[in-house]
């Protein structure tokens, strides 16, 4: 295993330590582990997210002005535990409730639910919004449902700006759900990756093969295929995203009236001619930036063919799987509200503009 680490058993702690030292505006806490904007939150909704480590800059890199107020990193590829979100939530609570943005992985969903219950017991209002944008997975009845991928980054950015604008908890949760149904992603891997704890690659991938339809946990995808050119790979991913049919599923959310978790039926948009989108061409961690631009070139061509216009783009490593080589593509439809909030100032370690 070739890694810049000291203690394979708990790399998260040593990495968080450096993160805290490098980032002036961010406080780092241990046991339970979480990071939050220094100074806390006053008189507005606070936004908390989290998930397994190994996806950096997600989520810690998005903590800061105009984006997340706190992030809870679990062990590598393992969702965090409820006590992390409980302490993070109490720390950043600004008296107007907490929005938890949760990627749709069984572990994340369950641990954030338990945390929400614990925070609610402390008298803090909490909404969990699930991001499930991975079009590689078709049905939700016979699977754990679509995974949360790149739309998470846009949801965190847009909701962070909205919280600063003073959106209340209900309005913010509604916005976050809108971003989720507006966003679709799909990823692929050229190589596997190795968690520090295991020391060997999570799966074997021969020199001439790739995995299509991967998540972000170093797991194999929905399909294995022979390696193809960047243009062909892009056509597969973008094609599935652009042609994805309206996807309907039940998502769990807290019903404050009922005082219980309820299932709500949700249906995604489909991309239409004339749509304007934010595009992410995201590296999985071990792919050179330059290759992502080759993918972007083809993506721009394909979206144009579909009459879909890319109005903003991010090309780089935004949601990764350690040192995996590969790419994921995300398209999020925009409207006036989303674009205004996306363009609003943001100052985090990984995303910054306007300030």
């Amino acid at each position: 295993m070739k890694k810049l680490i000291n203690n394979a058993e708990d790399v998260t702690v040593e990495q968080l330590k450096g993160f805290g030292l490098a980032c002036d505006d961010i406080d780092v806490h241990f046991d339970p582990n979480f990071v939050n904007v220094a100074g806390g939150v006053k008189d507005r909704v606070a936004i908390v997210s989290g998930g397994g480590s190994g996806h950096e800059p997600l989520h810690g890199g998005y903590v800061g002005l105009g984006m997340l107020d706190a992030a809870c990193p679990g062990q590598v590829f393992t969702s965090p535990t409820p006590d992390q979100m409980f302490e993070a939530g109490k720390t950043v609570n600004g008296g107007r409730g907490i929005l938890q943005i949760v990627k749709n992985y069984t572990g994340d969903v369950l641990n954030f639910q338990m945390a929400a219950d614990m925070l609610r017991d402390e008298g803090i209002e909490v909404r969990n919004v699930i991001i499930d944008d991975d079009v590689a997975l078709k049905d939700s009845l016979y699977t754990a449902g679509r995974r949360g991928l790149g739309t998470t980054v846009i949801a965190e950015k847009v909701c962070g700006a909205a919280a600063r604008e003073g959106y209340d908890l209900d309005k913010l949760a509604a916005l976050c759900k809108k971003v989720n149904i507006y966003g679709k992603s799909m990823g692929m891997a050229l190589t596997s990756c190795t968690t520090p704890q295991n020391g060997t690659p999570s799966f074997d991938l021969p020199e001439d093969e790739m995995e299509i339809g991967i998540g972000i946990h170093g797991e194999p995808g929905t399909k294995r295929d022979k390696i193809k050119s960047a243009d062909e790979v892009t056509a597969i991913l973008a094609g599935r995203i652009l042609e994805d049919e309206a996807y309907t599923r039940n998502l769990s959310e807290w019903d404050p009236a009922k005082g219980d978790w309820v299932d709500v039926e949700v249906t995604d948009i489909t991309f239409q001619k004339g749509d304007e989108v934010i595009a992410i061409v995201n590296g999985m961690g071990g792919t050179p930036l330059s290759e992502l631009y080759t993918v972007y070139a083809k993506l721009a061509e394909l979206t144009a063919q579909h009459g879909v216009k890319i109005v903003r783009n991010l090309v780089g490593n935004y949601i990764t799987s350690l040192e995996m080589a590969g790419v994921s593509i995300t398209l999020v439809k925009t409207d006036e509200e989303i674009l205004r909030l996306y363009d609003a100032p943001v100052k985090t370690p990984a995303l910054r503009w306007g300030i």
Partner: protein
Amino acid sequence: MADARAGAGTVTGPMVRAWIEKSAEVLAENRKYLTELDSPIGDSDHGNNMDRGYKAVVEKLPEGDDIGAMLKSVAMSLISKVGGAAGPLYGTMFLDGSKPLIGKTVVSGEELAQFFADAINGVKKRGRSDVGMKTMLDALAPASDAFRAEFAKDGDMPASLKAAAAAAKQGMEATIPMQAQRGRASYLGERSIGHQDPGATSSYLILQAFSDAVEEAAK
């Protein structure tokens, strides 16, 4: 047919403690194995998660013979140390199962059957899952059924737990040909077929540890 030994047909506080400690040992020994099972159809962490969790379980286990308190402590440790899907699921399992046992230092076969039932219902509700979906439930549910059936015969606790562990093993093996419908393995669709579920395997190991611990104590 009444057993000659004192307290046969029951599980005592020390037995539960022995079970928990044996579980931790067995999960530590099988850490790599469980993680390897989680590699083709998951994210290669199940053994790491369970070992980390049970290490904390043993560390924080309260003194005394209160079985409910011990099992609740197991739940809380797992919830706060495992993470992933297994953390809240095993946590809920022990939490929901432990509730009727708080304050009890000896538990009857009927109470233990209820413990299994409550525990399994907790997992089903938390995980929106059921038997046949290639999860821990495929080991847990047949074990619970086997325990109830065997205990009903002649109230032999060690034999009943042995039957439970055997059923769990069968259930675990039965996950191999299944296509996963819950958890990460479900993302793989048909590619999940042919692999044994890591969670069903850890469930079997925990139940086998229960059987072994009680059998040893009963000697």
